[in-house]
C-alpha cells in the first residue's frame, strides 16, 4: 500500500523532474519503478555533491584572490 507521511519533506531536487529521469532510466534498463526512498537518497547525494564542489570552488577562488593581492 501507499505510505502517507504526515511530515512535509523538503527535497533539494525537483521531485517531478527527478521522477521523470528515474522513469526514463528504469525503462531503458527494463526495470520496475523504484520506491520513493530511491528518489530521496539521490536528492540527498546530489546535495552533498554540489555542496562539496561549491566548497572546493570557494577555496580555489580564495587562493586566486590572494595571489592577485600579493
Amino acid at each position, binding site marked *: 500500500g501507499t505510505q502517507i507521511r504526515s511530515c512535509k519533506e523538503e527535497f533539494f531536487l525537483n521531485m517531478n523532474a527527478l521522477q521523470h529521469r528515474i*522513469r526514463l532510466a528504469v525503462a531503458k534498463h527494463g526495470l520496475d519503478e523504484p520506491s520513493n526512498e530511491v528518489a530521496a537518497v539521490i536528492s540527498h547525494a546530489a546535495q552533498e555533491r554540489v555542496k562539496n564542489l561549491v566548497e572546493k570552488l570557494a577555496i580555489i577562488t580564495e587562493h586566486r584572490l590572494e595571489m592577485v593581492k600579493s
Partner: protein
Amino acid sequence: SNAATPSEPLQQVLSKTRMSDLVRDIDPNIYMEDEVEEILLSYVDDFVDRVLNGASMIAKHRHVNNIEVKDVQQFINRNFNMWAPGLGTDELRP
C-alpha cells in the same frame, strides 16, 4: 503525465533557487557567476543520470527488478568517494 517519452525536453532537476539557498548556507559571502551556476545545474543533471544508470546496472547484477537504496549508495560510494546520507542502515553488500 506518466509517459516517459524520450523526445520530451527534460526539466533540470535542480532549480536556481535551491542552488542559491545552498550556496548561501555554505557561505553568505560567496558570489557565483551565472555561467558557473549554469554549469553546476547541468552537472547535477548529469550526476543524476550517471547515478541512475550505475544503480540500474548494480540492481540488474543482483538480478532484481528494481533499484533499491543500497544500489544507489553503492554506486555513489564507489564513484564519488562519498556516503549517501540517511535513509536506512541496510548492509551495503548484497
